[in-house]
């Protein structure tokens, strides 16, 4: 079989050596490591389909991978064939008049925006990993980002997709607008379990006429959370509304990404307003007043691009900055109703204290999408245990508050243990039914998203190494 794969993609694009596979043992969440049996890197759509057909012939499971920036352990190929798609990076069409672009899955998110910038357009979903993550990974994760508060997540921007089902059949999925099930909607966010994205047609968004970025500075974390809720409840819809707590500010300001945030603040809110120039100043005044009424100590207003970029750099590089604090980092991704944010942040702080771990909060406050991060040392078993206990407690609180366990990073491996707390057995079974439609043999990203035992007739996927051996 390996010989066949080499014939399809070229000898250099198949990796078998354990030392070379090491690079693919984890994604951006280094707490999980799984060794692929083999890695294959097709260079075109045709090669991708041929690889899938060849794997199907032997019943071999596989895991698609984009840039590997996932934060839920989703792209790990435990004993499977890792199918790297970063070489599929052609931009097939840009239609500035119709405001759409069709691209292959390996195109990097930020590259697309750079390419369409001359037309006054951009691709709105902007994960903080946008300089590295791929459109295919974005579609598979239904990725969000700071500007998704106003502009919506990946789901709201994908018009059509061509995908290869796990057996190699190529189908076009659309939104069902013209009479049909919304198979595209079902596919987006399926975390590589339904098939492989071959190309997607995306909606492009006109750049706003004007932008104002505000940095509101708070001496109490709860006040910043309350301000968030007040702004949204007042009917203002900022383009972005991000919160960073003291621990995060500290990490950022002591790193090369220092953005000039007030070092002694308990929290800052980074608020961006955009739209037509005429009404924007008034809107910013309103937001300022709401922040002050919630207890803001001071507010900075950036209107020139350089200062705005500086304020954003700290936010977008906050995860990286935490690398200074400890060698490892876990990132949680829960969502709660916005009115519960203040209470939840207090509980998270209490959990952190009780478990003696340092929690850094940096998150999409406008969406209620929390990202408690815990830097830790993976070589300290006692600390690892406390980190896990803290994570579990945080998740339980978020579920109890009417929230969910992931707002944008996906379930992957990391959030599997919470799926049964969130969904009833019939609902999980129905999810398995949906998967059955696309991947009846369960060879695409096996063992992810839905706990194996939650599906009535689930059978474990065969080992790729074993299958590969018998047929080489």
């Amino acid at each position: 079989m390996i010989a066949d794969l080499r014939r399809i993609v070229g000898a250099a694009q198949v990796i078998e050596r354990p030392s070379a596979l090491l690079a693919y043992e984890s994604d951006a969440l280094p707490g999980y490591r799984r060794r692929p049996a083999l890695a294959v890197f097709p260079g075109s759509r045709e090669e991708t389909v041929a690889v899938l057909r060849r794997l199907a012939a032997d019943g071999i499971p596989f895991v698609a991978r984009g840039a590997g920036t996932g934060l839920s352990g989703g792209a790990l190929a435990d004993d499977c064939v890792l199918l790297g798609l970063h070489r599929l990076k052609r931009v097939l069409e840009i239609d500035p008049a119709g405001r759409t672009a069709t691209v292959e899955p390996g195109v990097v998110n930020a590259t697309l925006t750079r390419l369409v910038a001359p037309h006054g357009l951009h691709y709105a979903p902007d994960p903080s990993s946008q300089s590295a993550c791929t459109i295919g990974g974005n579609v598979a994760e239904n990725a969000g980002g700071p500007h998704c508060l106003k502009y919506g997540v990946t789901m709201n921007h994908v018009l059509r997709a061509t995908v290869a089902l796990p057996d190699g059949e190529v189908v076009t999925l659309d939104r069902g607008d013209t009479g049909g099930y919304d198979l595209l909607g079902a596919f987006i966010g399926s975390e590589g379990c339904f098939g492989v994205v071959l190309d997607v047609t995306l909606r492009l968004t006109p750049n706003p006429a004007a932008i104002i970025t505000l940095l509101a500075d708070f001496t109490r974390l709860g006040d910043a959370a309350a301000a968030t809720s007040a702004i949204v409840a007042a009917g203002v819809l900022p383009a972005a509304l991000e919160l960073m707590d003291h621990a995060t500010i500290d990490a950022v300001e002591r790193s090369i990404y220092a953005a000039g945030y007030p070092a002694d603040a308990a929290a800052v809110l980074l608020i961006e307003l955009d739209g037509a120039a005429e009404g924007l100043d008034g809107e910013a005044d309103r937001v300022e007043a709401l922040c002050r009424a919630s207890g803001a100590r001071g507010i900075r207003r950036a209107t020139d691009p350089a200062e705005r970029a500086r304020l954003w750099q700290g936010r977008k590089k906050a995860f990286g900055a935490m690398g200074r604090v400890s060698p490892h980092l876990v990132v949680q991704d829960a969502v709660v109703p916005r009115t519960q944010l203040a209470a939840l942040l207090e509980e998270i702080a209490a959990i952190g204290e009780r478990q003696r771990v340092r929690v850094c909060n940096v998150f999409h406050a406008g969406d209620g999408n929390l990202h408690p991060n815990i830097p830790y040392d993976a070589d300290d078993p006692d600390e690892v245990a406390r980190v896990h206990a803290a994570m579990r407690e945080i998740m339980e609180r978020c579920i109890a508050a009417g929230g969910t366990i992931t707002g944008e990073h996906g379930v992957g491996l990391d959030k599997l243990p919470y799926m049964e707390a969130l969904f009833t057995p019939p609902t999980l079974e129905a999810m398995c039914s949906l998967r059955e439609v696309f991947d009846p043999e369960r060879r695409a990203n096996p063992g992810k998203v839905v706990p194996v035992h939650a599906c009535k007739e689930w059978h474990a996927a065969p080992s790729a190494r074993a299958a590969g051996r018998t047929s080489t």
Partner: protein
Amino acid sequence: MAPNDTRELADFLSETTDGLRIVGAGRWLDAGNPVRAMHTLRLERFAGVRQYVPEDLTISVGAATTLAELDNVTRPHGQWCPLLSWGDDSGTVGATIATATAGPFAASLGRPRDLVLGLECVDGLGRVINAGGQVVKNVAGFDLTRLMTGAWGSLGVITRVHLRLRARPAADETWVLHGDPAALDAFLRGPHAPLAALQLGSAASTASVASFGAVAVAAGADSVHRRLGLDPSARWLLRLGGNAADVNAAVKQLQQLGDCTQHDANIWTLVREHCAPPASATQWDWSPLARRVKHQFDPRGILNPGLLGERA
């Protein structure tokens, strides 16, 4: 058959082998193919607001709640549910989601698919499915919410819906444009995105219609003008919403583009009742994948049999 609650409905669906015709308010039942059903499944007992926290801008309602009631409840809080569908407001939320009916505001305020955060439904096997959630962002598990939205009840009976709300715009003005269609094209490409744009009459459709979510009402244009009480030179109906400065600037731009007059906002009620572009479930795409979906969720074919034209 009019079940009292989800449990009763689930018990019934897990046992019956007869075809069922699902009915909300029953206002738009003939939009598909004839349904061959033994029973009528009425959902009137699934009415009412279950949870509403205005500060969160979300609401959870029983499927039989009417669009009118939803509006009555949210209006005092300066909010609305952008599911301002075609037809009138006597239809139910469940049916609007089940049919994915998107009215003239879909392009700016969101289509049903963008507004449903989660739902409860009972599928053809009697499984009570709680899809999605009540928060505005959620990627936990596979997306059954999207699957059920627009499935015309052929995969499950929707019993409860969690929706995203929006703030009503501070300024909300309706303008009629008599000018040249190309001028409107320039407007739509500018910084002032309207809440709704309706092209009246069968004039050569501009690029705007397709690219900007503007809605064209071409067929029977004359009678549309008459029903809306507009003179025949009216080419476009625009609804501008946002903060006052914004809307003023938009109006100024419109006035530079051509001849326009302000109109009473009540006209949108008439628009929704009389201008709906033909939409129905008669042209269903039964791809092999779609058939597999149907088989997974309603293997006995008891839900709205025949509505989507599937062969028995």
